[in-house]
């Protein structure tokens, strides 16, 4: 009767309950919107790959067949609730909704029920370190919180050492070649290793006796490892030693500074149209401290993914990996090379052209990738109708006009090297910006899958073959390119 005598209290109570329900629903939506897709990375001597993690009943699950299939011959058979898997000579049987499985005739208790999802057999992540050794007959180390699975002895170790030169450099040596995604932000340079089985050093935080780069930290989460280097100045990373060494040094000038195009050049530089935006600056800021022979431009980047080559593979990632390999090969031949987009950054076409023109390279190479056809296609500029040059200033839209023959000569040299390596090659002109805005010999490369199919497009072997051919072609044309003015 106490409630009856205080009706408004009851109304207030229910109002509060309703308010709570709606708040919960609203927050749930917010959480779902912002939640990052969970992933697990698997490292083995056969392949390194990443799979999506499915959350069911508060547990993280992953497809068992998807884990084993890249490692060896595996096949499955579904019979009602029963899911049978054979990997090489190991047979296993799971039942949907049950937490007991049989592997090679022996029972195994899973920490949660096995699930069937449209024929996919899902096992809880927590059981991988006990389940997989029965199939693989090799030690398995699972970093459960970061979802990184190491099969066998595949770990990549690294050391970091500061060189007290002027400016100081941080040299990181890795036990195997690495190709991280690099991002810069004020006071920090981050390197994200998703495909590399990188393991932490003795201490996850490294301190250095340097005011410019005082520390670095190792962290791992969501299937990736990250090394973050703190710096009091904008930092740049460069690769050497076939990807085994990353050298981090202060950028030659402020990365956020607007692009300078007013240096008195030996060749009149094309000026970008006034409407261009300078809001996004590249990782590699340039002010001509070093004469670059080549500028390699990894097309697309940031929010602009380029072509979707497969469900998982974006053009921007293939171009970045290839651009870095190309820099290694060109540097190895003594051709100092600048990679315009050395990270997952958004750069406009005008910014790419403006940056290139400001360093006056002997050759500009734009890198693209496509799923259509096979082999490699080389392009020089198909020039649009332009407004004509004005005195010492080149018309922005047709800045390439005076370099067409040099570009075609370089293209022919590259084409010959691809031919020498039995890579199918084709040469064309193309309406592809910013080729027409470049005041230097300029060539674009579009790599298509090799005969092995689209999955080979980002393979290290194929990209290395392409990078070697391009570098050899540029080196062969070095004298001609050096004479271009």
């Amino acid at each position, binding site marked *: 009767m106490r*409630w*009856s005598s205080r*009706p408004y209290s*009851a*109304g207030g109570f*229910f*109002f509060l309950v*309703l308010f709570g*329900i709606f708040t919960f629903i609203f927050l749930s939506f917010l959480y779902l919107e912002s939640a990052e897709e969970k992933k697990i990375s698997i490292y083995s001597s056969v392949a390194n790959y990443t799979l999506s993690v499915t959350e069911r009943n508060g547990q993280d699950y992953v497809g068992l067949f998807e884990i084993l299939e890249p490692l060896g011959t595996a096949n499955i058979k579904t019979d009602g609730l029963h899911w049978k898997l054979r990997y090489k000579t190991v047979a296993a049987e799971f039942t949907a909704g049950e937490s007991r499985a049989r592997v090679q005739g022996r029972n195994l208790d899973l920490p949660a029920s096995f699930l069937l999802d449209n024929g996919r057999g899902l096992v809880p992540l927590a059981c991988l370190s006990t389940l997989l050794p029965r199939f693989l007959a090799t030690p398995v180390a699972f970093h459960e919180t970061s979802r990184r699975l190491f099969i066998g002895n595949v770990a990549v170790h690294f050391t970091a050492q500061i060189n007290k030169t002027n400016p100081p450099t941080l040299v990181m040596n890795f036990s195997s070649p690495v190709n991280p995604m690099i991002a810069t932000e004020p006071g920090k340079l981050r390197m994200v290793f998703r495909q590399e089985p990188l393991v932490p050093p003795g201490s996850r935080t490294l301190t250095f006796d340097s005011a410019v780069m005082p520390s670095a930290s190792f962290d791992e989460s969501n299937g990736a490892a990250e090394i973050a280097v703190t710096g009091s100045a904008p930092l740049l990373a460069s690769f050497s030693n076939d990807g085994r060494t990353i050298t981090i040094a202060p950028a030659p000038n402020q990365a956020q500074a607007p692009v300078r195009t007013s240096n008195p050049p030996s060749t009149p530089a094309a000026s970008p149209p006034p409407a261009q935006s300078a809001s996004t600056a590249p990782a590699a800021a340039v002010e001509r401290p070093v004469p670059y022979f080549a500028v390699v431009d990894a097309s*697309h980047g940031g929010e*602009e993914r*380029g*072509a*979707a080559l497969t469900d998982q593979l974006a*053009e921007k990632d293939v171009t970045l990996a290839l651009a870095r390999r190309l820099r290694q090969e060109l540097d190895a031949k003594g051709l100092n090379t600048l990679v315009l987009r050395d990270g997952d950054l958004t750069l406009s*076409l005008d910014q790419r052209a403006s940056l290139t023109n400001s360093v006056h390279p002997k050759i500009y190479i734009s890198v*693209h990738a*496509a*799923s*259509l*056809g096979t082999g490699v*296609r080389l*392009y020089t500029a*198909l*020039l*649009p*109708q*332009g407004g004509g040059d004005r005195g010492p200033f080149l018309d922005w*839209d047709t800045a390439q006009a005076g370099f067409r023959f040099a570009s075609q000569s370089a293209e022919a040299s590259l084409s010959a090297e691809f031919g020498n390596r039995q890579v199918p090659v*084709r*040469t*064309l*002109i*193309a*309406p*592809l*910006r910013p080729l*027409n805005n470049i005041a230097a010999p300029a060539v*674009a490369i*579009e790599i298509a899958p090799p005969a092995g199919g689209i999955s080979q497009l980002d393979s290290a072997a194929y990209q290395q073959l392409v990078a070697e051919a391009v570098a050899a072609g540029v080196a062969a044309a070095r004298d001609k390119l050096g004479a271009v003015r």
Partner: protein
Amino acid sequence: MIPRHLLIGVAAMFAVVLGMSVYVWRMRGRVEQVEAPVVDTRTVAPPVSGPSEQVTLYVAYDEPGVLRAQTARIALPSGRQERAQELLRALLGMYLDKSSSHQLGPGAEIRDVYLVDPGLAVIDANAAFADTHRSGVLVEELTVASLVQTLAVNIPGITRVKILVDGKQREALAGHADLTGFYDVSAVNELASQMR
């Protein structure tokens, strides 16, 4: 007698149920909108009146990555501008076929072609033409070369071509082929000869 707090509780629950029903009903309507069958968005043009003529279409073939000249007989009106539109619509009609050698996305259409003296042709494609186009240097330049070359070969006097999307300038067709400039017909002719 039913206690007052229970009455209030039941009333509140009814209110919640009613509110959720209205919400679900509206969401269902939205889903139906989303899942509605794809409507052919192409403009409905009146049947072309005019004699059937033999024309040369430059047709793209993805697999070898070539452009081939093909003759076809299509009904063409007498006006120069209308002829240009019909030519490109006939070409796109081939690309929209499921067995096409160079498939374009559903709904791709040429809205208009404007001929501006001296020698300028402006092609205005609809948004679906660019939004659904596959991305890649070769596949995009095949489309551009096919359109420009077909127009230039069949409509005398065209020396440059501009491509708009939905009446506006666009930076690139699908991330690669430049749409900001004017295509020089002689340069595209050189490209077409490389693509044979």
